[in-house]
């Protein structure tokens, strides 16, 4: 409890410091202009100076450990809240015997694993066919160096089974 209080107090102090610094910079800017320029120009210059001072202070604040700590706390809260909602929705869907997000994710992952295994196998077969092809064409006497062939394999594009061109679709 006292830890939390100290943390909050530190964050509040950092926030207060930001505003104190901003205000002092703003005041410096406001008094830095003479009365030679026409009024709207002076106002615009003052305003731009104020914004610059504010931007600087905020940049410093957003880099401070206090801000990073409060951002982390806020993120944790948001994630926990979302997790709670997810769990609740999953429970409701399970109760009414409907598929939940977890169920769909599991199916999607299974499909992806199957796709990956299939594509890996197709790639292996492609390499073997290439080797056979080169043997048939009489290049078997000059096998490629080991490093080069492994690089070639690494560059093999992973084809999607769902590939479809516009003309094919038509």
């Amino acid at each position, binding site marked *: 409890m006292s830890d939390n209080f100290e943390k909050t107090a530190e964050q509040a102090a950092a926030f207060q410091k930001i505003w104190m610094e901003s205000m002092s910079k703003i005041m410096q800017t406001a008094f830095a202009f003479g009365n030679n320029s026409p009024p709207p120009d002076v106002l615009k210059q003052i305003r731009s100076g104020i914004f610059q001072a504010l931007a600087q202070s*905020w940049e410093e604040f957003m880099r401070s450990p206090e801000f990073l700590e409060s951002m982390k706390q806020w993120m944790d809260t948001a994630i926990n809240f979302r997790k709670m909602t997810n769990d609740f929705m999953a429970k409701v869907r399970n109760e009414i015997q409907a598929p939940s997000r977890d169920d769909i994710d599991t199916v999607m992952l299974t499909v992806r694993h199957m796709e990956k295994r299939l594509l890996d196998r197709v790639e292996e077969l492609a390499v073997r066919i290439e080797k056979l092809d080169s043997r048939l064409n009489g290049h078997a006497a000059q096998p490629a160096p080991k490093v080069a062939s492994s690089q070639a394999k690494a*560059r093999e594009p992973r084809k999607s089974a769902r590939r479809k061109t516009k003309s094919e679709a038509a």
Partner: protein
Amino acid sequence: MSESAPYSNPWLQWQRAALDESFAALGRMTNFPTLWERAKRVRKGVSASEVVYEEDRLKLLHYRSDSKPRFKTPLVFTYALVNRPYILDLKKGRSVVANFVNHGFDTYLVDWGVPTPADRHLTLDDYINGYMANVMDYLFERTGAKSLNVLGYCMGGTMSAMFTALHPERVKNLILLAAPIDFSSNDSLLNLWTRPENFDVDKFVDTFGNCPPEFLQSTFLLLRPVGNFLEKPINFYENMHEEKFLEDFLTTESWLNDNIPVPGEVYRQFVKYLYQQNLLTQNRMPVGKHIVNLQNITCPVLNLMAGKDDLVPCSQGMPFTNLVGSKDRKTILLDGSGHIGLAIGGRAQKEVWPQACEWLAQRSD
């Protein structure tokens, strides 16, 4: 107003200013009712194009030209996964795509589409060795070219660099536009906020699935809180009676707020391997079962960066030219410009894109 103010008495000057401001405010008020309608009418991409290839949610756009392309080697634009790609063809006179089409390049653009919750398991491997490789294969078939010119913007640039390193024989020339490569510095607030001690990306992706667009948008806005929450609205209010300003503002803002979710696994890999571990510069970045080695990039490289980029500061993009194996490499830095200004800004249109077109023309068949 101020030019016509002949009054030496400051009190009279103030009165004159107040009167002028009242009339301007009246003009602004008349624009209010039509704003929403006008924002809805903003066009998403202005150059004439057709979809020539589709795969899942991906669409490949081909830009039509009145004349036959001067160069045989096609040019492909790849944009990031965080926003929509029509920023590269935002409006007449501000279109990156139109610059290249008018220069005689056969130009294509990859639109990744909008991921749904079912796409949360897509990885960088699926995008780079799957979708990108398939798009390139299709273009080889379609055009008969043996290699392509690739231009990647932002995260699309990082992905293009990875693609080129994994498939060097397929890329003839590589152009990176504000692409983050080296994540070691803390110049950008994003780097600091995504450090492992500040952000648990695993917990985030496991809970949310895809990275929500609202989360990304609010993070980007927070990078410049004073600019985005104070200066921008005030600037808008002061200039909304000017037709040209209003049109530019609505076009840019419509794009800025047209965010899309990022597939969860891609987000996890990008944050973990790049923002947190900086593996790309160490040539240890895993993409599926392959490791990206930037030294494999030997084609000519053009690296374009903006001096005032909050999202991708120069320190993130500059090291790229020294990490590749290419001998032909060039960097153009546009001082005073931001992340979006580098693409659509007036200065970029005058200073950067003519140079980039010329650079590519000299290296294309």
